[in-house]
């Protein structure tokens, strides 16, 4: 899948085990004092066949809704699709970039196929957030982060190990460069594997699990609203020293 970030405003970051590269806006293009790093990881495995267009629509709606946030200028958003058909299980649609620079109409409709590399998606989200967040903090920017892993299945084929995920979680907690980090595992059409997802959430140190229900247009619209509201809450919490408190318990 082609990356959408080919401009000079983006920078490549190749650090990390397993070749989990990512991109982010160049620091000299960032003028604010603080940023919330947002990652949305969307399942593109074979089991999403049949509601892939709705998933793409949900993603576009969520990102477009984030633009209405009063702190939209302080959000850098990254989107990845994950499936075992990609090297390292992840395809970056675009790296951390200002909302104003994102063209959601260019988001490709997922092309379902492959198995579920949940560890890869989580590791990529965590690792990129840690690396980019650290570098932002080194440049005096205040940083917090939130990421969403939206999946309909349990882990079954990753390059990254659970230990790698745990190490990144530990790094996020101990480095103190991120003011706070919220991670949300969202199950969609995931009733049959909810127990496995719950276990994955606990083992990977993900802070929340949310069941979005069946993949109906109504539920996906609610999921888009949940994502944008959570991003808004976390962004408004930046500078307070803690995470946002008002993330809805139910989608």
């Amino acid at each position, binding site marked *: 899948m082609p990356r959408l970030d080919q401009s000079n405003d983006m920078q490549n970051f190749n650090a990390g085990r397993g070749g989990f590269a990512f991109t982010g806006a160049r*620091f*000299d*293009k*960032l*003028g*604010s*004092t603080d940023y919330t790093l947002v990652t949305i990881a969307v399942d593109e495995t074979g089991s999403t066949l049949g509601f892939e267009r709705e998933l793409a629509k949900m993603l576009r709606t969520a990102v477009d809704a984030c633009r209405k946030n009063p702190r939209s200028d302080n959000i850098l958003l990254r989107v990845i699709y994950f499936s075992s058909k990609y090297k390292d299980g992840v395809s970056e649609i675009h790296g951390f970039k200002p909302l104003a620079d994102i063209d959601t109409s260019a988001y490709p409709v997922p092309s379902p196929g492959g198995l579920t590399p949940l560890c890869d998606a989580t590791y990529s989200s965590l690792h990129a957030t840690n690396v980019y967040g650290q570098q932002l903090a080194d*440049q*005096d*920017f205040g940083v917090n982060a939130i990421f969403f892993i939206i999946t309909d299945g349990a882990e079954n084929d990753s390059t990254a190990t659970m230990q790698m995920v745990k190490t990144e979680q530990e790094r996020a907690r101990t480095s103190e460069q991120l003011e706070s980090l919220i991670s949300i595992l969202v199950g969609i059409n995931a009733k049959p594997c909810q127990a496995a997802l719950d276990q994955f959430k606990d083992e990977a140190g993900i802070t929340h699990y949310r069941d979005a229900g069946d993949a109906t247009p109504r539920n996906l619209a609610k999921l888009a609203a949940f994502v944008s509201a959570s991003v808004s809450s976390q962004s408004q919490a930046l500078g307070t020293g803690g995470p946002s408190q008002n993330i809805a318990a139910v989608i």
Partner: protein
Amino acid sequence: MKLFTDDHFLIGAMHLTSGKPCQDYAISGSFGGIAYAIVSDGCSSAGLTDMGARLITHSAARAICGHWSVSGDIVSASAPQEIEIDQEIVLGGIRQTLGLLPQDMLATCAYACVGAEGGFVHVRGDGVVAFVEKDGGLMLLRYDWANNTPFYPAYLAENLLPTFISAHGGDPDAPALTETVWTKDASGKSSETSRRYSLKAGIAGAMLPISRERLEKLSFVAIFSDGVTQVENIDWRDAAVQLLSFKSVGGLFAKRRMIRFVQTSHASGKGPIDDIAYAVIRIAPDGKQKGEDSGC
């Protein structure tokens, strides 16, 4: 050359705990090819000097831009005096319109303005001026008044000068203002000198011309309020150096630096005891002037 500006101010621990407002203020901007950086520090024991500090900085900006519009000159010796007169006219009108009292206007006014041909710094009151050179050299000039009784431009504008002179002993020729100059060259070697200004000279203010040749060697000109000299357990030189150690220079570069500085300063103490403010002009090599004027 390109000129970029930024500024920030924060309340100090003393005012925070005593429920007083931040009485420091800073603004900066660019206008028609020049850039300015202005800082004001209101007198804690006077009236609504948080308002005074704000009005003084904005009136100074207005006067600088107005003067530049009319004369196209910020390098001649008469420029500071002409700007001062413009500012007094603007300020007097605003004060009376808002129904503020003369003691509400007791605040310092220190500013820098530079353009392609050079510029100057004018310190009316106290504070610290910094010149950062492209080769890594640094010059800090600190201004302190005797008995911690600084001159405020409102003393002149509001006919309060006799009271101020009496507070300093009544002799206009007696030393009242100390200028401490600390320099560090590119190799890291530092030196410090100081000299005294008479009360009369202090009232006129410290004038620091910046020639075009000097400007070409500079990367930053910064104006600090005296809050930079009162950060708990941090020497004023170190505090200034840290506040000038910009990690990135895009957008709100001074604001980011001050926020981080204050955060880290709490590791060694209470941070800034007094309110703290600074305004910075960044001088970058060739190119266009900052995209938008700031609306003077």
